[in-house]
């Protein structure tokens, strides 16, 4: 077996990704994201060390990492890693370059645009709500614009993920996604959009936690 696929970090990532999918099904999205992120970090660390004479291995580990970052909701890291691997394109085959470019473009679309650059008023005090820091809105007006933009970007992201997965979205579901202005709800829907089988499942009420499912099958099976 090739040593990068057999790397203990990859083996651990396989278990983390498996458990993450189970956590998603239980509706434990915070845990799912953390597990996906841990898996992504491990896949990425190993992928970057695969030499150029193993382009398939490098490609598949990199794709596993990029996809896991996306499942964790960290589209920024997904895009950053894809760019980094593509920058060392000689170590990828044609398939790897094409697939990672596609993923990078797909996930880059999901990144919210930066907040608009504020124009300071010429005279008078500024209506600040917080200390101005990079990337944060500086006034109530700008905060409103920023939040509206974030909501619209997240709704677009949900629809883009469903479209990329080939899932048909009815007019009713589309209207519900576009009308939602609650960012935490949209966060949940965005994560669901990456995993559910139908668009209606994105906006359904949260599923109840499974009875007896707290330990995870992998852990229980390990004890059996």
């Amino acid at each position, binding site marked *: *077996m090739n040593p990068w696929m*057999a790397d203990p970090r990859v083996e651990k990532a396989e278990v983390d990704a498996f458990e993450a999918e189970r956590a998603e099904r239980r509706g434990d999205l915070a845990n799912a994201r953390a597990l996906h992120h841990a898996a992504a970090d491990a896949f990425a660390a190993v992928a970057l060390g695969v030499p150029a004479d193993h382009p398939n291995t490098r490609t598949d580990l990199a794709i596993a990492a990029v996809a896991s970052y996306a499942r964790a909701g960290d589209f920024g890291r997904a895009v950053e890693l894809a760019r980094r691997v593509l920058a060392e394109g000689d170590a990828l085959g044609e398939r790897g370059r094409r697939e990672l470019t596609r993923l990078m473009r797909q996930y880059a679309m999901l990144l919210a645009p930066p907040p608009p650059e504020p124009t300071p008023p010429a005279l008078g005090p500024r209506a600040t709500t917080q200390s101005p820091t990079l990337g944060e809105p500086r006034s109530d007006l700008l905060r409103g614009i920023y939040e509206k933009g974030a909501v619209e970007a997240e709704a677009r992201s949900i629809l883009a993920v469903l479209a990329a997965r080939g899932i048909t979205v009815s007019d009713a579901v589309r209207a519900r996604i576009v009308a939602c202005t609650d960012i935490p709800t949209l966060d949940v829907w965005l994560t669901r959009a990456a*995993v559910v089988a139908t668009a209606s499942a994105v906006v359904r009420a949260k599923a109840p936690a499974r009875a007896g499912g707290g330990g995870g099958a992998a852990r229980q099976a390990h004890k059996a």
Partner: protein
Amino acid sequence: MPDLPVETELSRPVAEALALAATVVLDRVHGPRARDQAVVHADDSERAAEIHRVPIDDRARATYADAQEATEEGAEGIAVLLARRMLGRIVFRRLPKGTGADYLMRDPGANDSDAYERLECSGIADGQESATARLRSKIEQLARFPDQPPGRAVVTHFRQEPVEIRLGSFPT
């Protein structure tokens, strides 16, 4: 199913979970027993097979209380073993969803460690969909990633008796 962890190179917790899931589904649709008869359809041929279950208890049943989850993971367990027993391939890694394949498998006789194949898995435990129709859609799924290494798809219809297992390939 008891041999699944040693017949693959998957991490042991994942392999054991797949064997457990397959047994829970079979227990649910056919009742408690130690073995299930199966028929494997590959290309134009068919072959009788027998599925040996692993021991389960109420805790295992509770863990797999979600029938869809049990069916999906149970079908993965069947497919992984079928790859070993019928195709002579060793499944060595389960991939996260969204990567274009469920599993990667290798030919143990091949020298090139960078050459491997994809394995797609699917299961049916209720509803009206046939295994043939599901296999067709899985092959279409493999065909959507033509750049990727060659792939096989395995669909298991647990409710049929004998259990119906269908194997397909891309490219055909």
